[in-house]
């Protein structure tokens, strides 16, 4: 039943960050931005916790907005990651401001006001980004979902461009054009979906309405709709071969933004694919959709393996690792059965660890002033805390125990072998090991040796806010590994049942 309190929480969750974004943009006060950023991320986290531990099905706008099991899971990911990134950003921005003032020649006042202005745009875009990602997790209506996913691109484009300069410009342009192109195809997919849904049966294009009349859907049109939705949202999710924007945007964006793009935004695009997949399963097209998901999952892992080996830029390496993990997610859902459970676990684990790694990469970049892995040596000596985190994160992201990704990758492999899908299991294992070798050979040498270059002479102290957020994320990822908390397990089980059988869930 709809209760006033739930409804209020839902609208607060959606609109409060955007309202703060408007305020930050409009009011030029230096402290206001960081204060509102902290307040909204904390409030967002609290309300998300409320939705998790007091589970009800909140509804608004005639069932267009509701928090079902899938949405709740990804809302949790977005909220936790944003809180970590926001905490990091506060310290990062003060560093950036200092740097801008140091580098300014001549007019200090003009430099300060320019830095202040770009900071304001940055924070308000960040808040809009949070609002739009939250909207994605709440959307039950396919076309509203489209609007929300496109809005995430637009809100995050200024974030990618924060550092200015030709490289950031190129990355932003590619991000905008390729993602808009993909999203346009998803719009076509939405139209095809509305053709597939017989108009005379009534009802809107909401997930629950489509699931309840799944048997009436026109299967040929639904197939076409799924293909376009998959390609469109898959572009945004970074599935190969339409992933080309991803390494550029992730390496050029500020590290806190990269962590959000990789952990939260890609997961949000995956929500779009999951929604379409859910309807396909309910309409009896499960094996068709699964075939597509498995194929593109493996292709993405293959692409990532090729580009990670001999990669020279450590942020690009992390970006390609995201392509790999998005491939694993797609593959796991495509395999069905127990692999879906593992896939959802994988989504959480990847988001936490990858966000942590990007934040640490940001610390390394600040100290060494270079993204080239060859130029970075002696991180363990120069930045002890970041060095340890980098080391742990590297093993966590490549699926070593005791971190969460080991459990999920192992479950996927076991399921594939149990079902006799050797054609999937063998390339899967091959790509995972190639990626491990590639990432280890790039990142381990960064840790050892003597610090050189900029870091040798001038090593900035690791400030509290650059270390605490990644440490918190690492702890969460570690907690997932050996033992999945029962409340989480129940939720993920519910999602797996929904996606395997196509029944509408969460309405209890």
């Amino acid at each position, binding site marked *: 039943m709809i209760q006033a309190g739930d409804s209020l929480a839902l609208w607060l969750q959606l609109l409060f960050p955007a309202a703060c974004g408007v305020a930050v943009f409009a009011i030029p006060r230096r402290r206001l931005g960081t204060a509102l950023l902290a307040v909204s991320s904390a409030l967002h986290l609290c309300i998300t916790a409320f939705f998790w531990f007091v589970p009800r099905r909140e509804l608004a706008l005639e069932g267009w907005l509701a928090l079902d099991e899938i949405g709740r899971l990804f809302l949790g990911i977005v909220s936790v990651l944003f809180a970590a990134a926001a905490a990091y950003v506060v310290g990062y921005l003060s560093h950036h401001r200092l740097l801008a003032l140091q580098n300014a020649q001549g007019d200090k006042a003009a430099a300060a006001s320019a830095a202040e202005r770009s900071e304001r745009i940055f924070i308000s875009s960040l808040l809009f980004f949070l609002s739009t990602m939250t909207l994605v997790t709440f959307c039950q209506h396919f076309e*509203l979902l489209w609007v929300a996913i496109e*809005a995430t691109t*637009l809100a995050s484009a200024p974030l990618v461009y924060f550092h200015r300069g030709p490289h950031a410009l190129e990355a932003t342009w*590619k991000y*905008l054009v390729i993602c808009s192109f993909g999203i346009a195809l998803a719009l*076509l997919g939405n139209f095809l979906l*509305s*053709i597939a849904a017989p108009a005379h049966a009534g009802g*809107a294009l909401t997930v629950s309405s489509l699931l309840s009349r799944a048997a009436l859907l026109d299967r*040929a049109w639904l197939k076409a709709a799924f293909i376009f939705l998959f390609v469109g949202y898959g572009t945004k999710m970074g599935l190969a071969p339409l992933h080309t924007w991803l390494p550029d945007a992730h390496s050029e964006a500020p590290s806190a933004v990269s962590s959000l793009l990789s952990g939260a935004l890609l997961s949000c695009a995956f929500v779009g694919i999951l929604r379409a997949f859910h309807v396909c399963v309910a309409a009896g097209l499960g094996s068709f959709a699964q075939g597509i998901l498995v194929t593109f999952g493996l292709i993405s892992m293959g692409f990532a393996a090729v580009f990670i080996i001999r990669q020279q830029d450590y942020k690009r390496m992390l970006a390609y690792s995201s392509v790999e993990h998005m491939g694993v997610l797609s593959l796991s859902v495509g395999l069905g059965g127990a692999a879906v459970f593992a896939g959802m676990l994988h989504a959480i684990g990847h988001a936490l660890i990858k966000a942590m790694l990007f934040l640490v990469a940001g610390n390394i970049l600040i100290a060494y002033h270079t993204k080239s892995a060859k130029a970075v040596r002696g991180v363990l000596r120069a930045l002890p805390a970041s060095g340890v985190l980098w080391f742990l994160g590297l093993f966590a992201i490549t699926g070593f125990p005791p971190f969460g990704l080991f459990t999920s990758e192992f479950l996927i492999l076991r399921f594939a072998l149990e079902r006799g899908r050797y054609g999937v299991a063998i390339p899967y294992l091959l790509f995972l090991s190639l990626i491990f070798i590639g990432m280890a050979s790039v990142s381990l040498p960064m840790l050892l040796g003597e610090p050189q270059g900029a870091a040798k002479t001038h090593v900035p102290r690791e400030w509290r806010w650059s270390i605490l957020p990644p440490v918190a994320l690492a702890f969460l990822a570690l907690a997932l590994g050996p033992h999945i908390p029962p409340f989480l397990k129940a939720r993920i089980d519910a999602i797996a049942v929904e996606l395997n059988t196509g029944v509408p869930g969460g309405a209890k």
Partner: protein
Amino acid sequence: MGIRNGSFVDFLLIALILGNLLLLGSSRLMSYIRICAAQGLLVSALTFILHRGEVSARIVVLVVGSAVLKAGLFPWLLIRAVRVAYIKKEIEPIVGYSASLIFGVLILALSLWLSARLPIHGKAAASFVPTAAFFTIFTGCFLIVSRTKAITQVISYLVLENGIYLFGLPFVGEAALLIELGVFLDLTVGVAVMGIIIYHISREFDSLDVKHLSTLKDWGS
């Protein structure tokens, strides 16, 4: 229901198809913008004609909204971007103009074949709407990959969007006003953001050629 002014609809669709061919063959940025705006106007007119029997507040908002945005705001933004960036130069395409035109004829044939094969029922089946829509979509896709100016890519994206919008036109009976407003909002912000980036590209490189935007690579430099 049904389409009463069938021949008039066909006339508009043929105008749209000719516009696509002009886009493929033309070299001046200004004519690109004008053709794209004219197509926006055509699509809004088609919205009205195809939904004549059921004029509601929604249809009025759709018609007025798409006309104002696609034939008013977007061309204005794009022309401003062209002025700011001082480009009067002709476009240097990756694929030449005559080759583009030949390709255009091929994709027109493909669109005819595709729309004849699709099991489309209802009002759309009676007309060439799907054919014209497919052709516009393919033209947009082709232009995005074959032209090198940042601004041309934005225009091509709008052409692609026009095609998709036209394709959905006969079918979207159920989608609500809120969603269409959302689509408009996304488009507007999208074009505005792209416009800002275009401004920065022109300031950074003294040119709007996306060939400059190819330094980010994986191996070597």
